């Protein structure tokens, strides 16, 4: 009398890793950091995101004239900053950290084009971590003349404090860095191609000027 009606090795379905972390937060949330610029007589906040275990990307105007730079992660951990350097040809800056950052994304291979869906993750108004969505609506030269080359325009909602936010594509890869907005609530983005070009050139970043 056969007894093997039920196979002992049941077929297991392959599960996708997905983008969740051990604490359930999405990868896009885990890469974001809040940056506090404590100046000589000022205090301001901005956003940034990790590109490796101890390196952040943000805007130049977020870290200049700082006496100290203080970083906090999506879950409220404080990370000490060891150095900050700024780019001359774009509104970008690099911040090095003393300890490892929670997560870092991949950089996209190409810039997004008009119509592409994007997400912006950052700390508008220095408040809670926020993710907003939108689409690329235009490419233009920088109206602030802070960036060499073309910049992107999106309809994703941003605000003061969103400077330095990561712009992600639908696959969670970085396609740009927010640096400004206009009166029509459109956001300006430094494209990932500019970021990658500057990261590849070590001489393109210099020590960020501190306040006196």
């Amino acid at each position: 009398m056969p007894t093997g009606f039920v196979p002992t090795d049941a077929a297991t379905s392959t599960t996708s890793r997905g983008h969740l972390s051990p604490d359930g937060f999405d990868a896009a949330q885990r890469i974001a950091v809040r940056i506090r610029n404590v100046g000589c007589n000022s205090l301001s906040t901005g956003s940034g995101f990790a590109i490796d275990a101890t390196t952040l990307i943000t805007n130049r105007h977020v870290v200049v004239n700082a006496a100290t730079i203080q970083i906090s992660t999506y879950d409220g951990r404080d990370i000490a900053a060891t150095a900050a350097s700024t780019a001359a040809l774009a509104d970008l800056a690099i911040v090095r950290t003393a300890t490892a950052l929670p997560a870092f994304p991949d950089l996209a291979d190409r810039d997004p084009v008009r119509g592409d869906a994007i997400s912006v993750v950052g700390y508008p108004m220095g408040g809670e971590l926020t993710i907003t969505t939108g689409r690329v609506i235009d490419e233009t030269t920088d109206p602030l003349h802070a960036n060499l080359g073309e910049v992107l325009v999106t309809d994703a909602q941003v605000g003061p404090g969103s400077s330095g936010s990561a712009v992600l594509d639908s696959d969670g890869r970085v396609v740009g860095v927010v640096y400004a907005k206009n009166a029509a609530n459109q956001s300006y983005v430094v494209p990932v191609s500019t970021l990658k070009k500057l990261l590849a050139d070590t001489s393109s970043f210099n020590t960020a000027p501190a306040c006196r």
Partner: protein
Amino acid sequence: MVDCPRERTSVPILSTVEHEPSPVTQPIRRVGPPTVAFHPFPAVAPVPAAAPVPKVKGHRVPRFWIWALTLAVAATLALAGYLLATTNAWQHRAAELDRASRDLGSQLSGARADLQASKSQLDSVTAQLATAQTRITQLADEKAQLGDDREAQRSLADYQARATAAAAQVAAAMDKCIAGQQQYIGYLRDGAAYNPTELAQFGTDVAGYCQTATDANASLQQELRK
């Protein structure tokens, strides 16, 4: 005389064996000498005197058929036995399969209930996780706001300390300036009693004190404007 049928073996009442009918059913008739049919055609050769006909012994069935019948009965009984055993085995197997299927059905029912319970629990845990994540985000924001307040207070405290220090310097310099000037005025009232050179030097020193007070005040104003 007809032989009696052989002894039957006992078999279960699942199949019956047709018994051979009693051999004594057919009429008995004498068997006479063969007669020759009359033919009007050329006569056949005269039949020699008939040989004596052997007598047939009663109502006997040929032995071959008895054996054949016996074998048939035996084969039939054997086949019946085999079929009976096979049937029993299949019935037993069917009963076991029925038990196994019921057992599997019971297990399946239990597994479905467990799955439903797990799904419900997963939904609950997912909701709890979302709540926890929201709270973590809020707490991180609250901590960040406290940090901002702390740094703002620290900056303000530093500013006040600097302003206070600057004001204290101004006050000290003013005190020295005022005291010096008052003393200088006293000397000037009785100028003939003092060496003119020394008196002039004292006036220069007092002017220096007052310039220090002026500079300290300028620093204070600059600090206040920060």
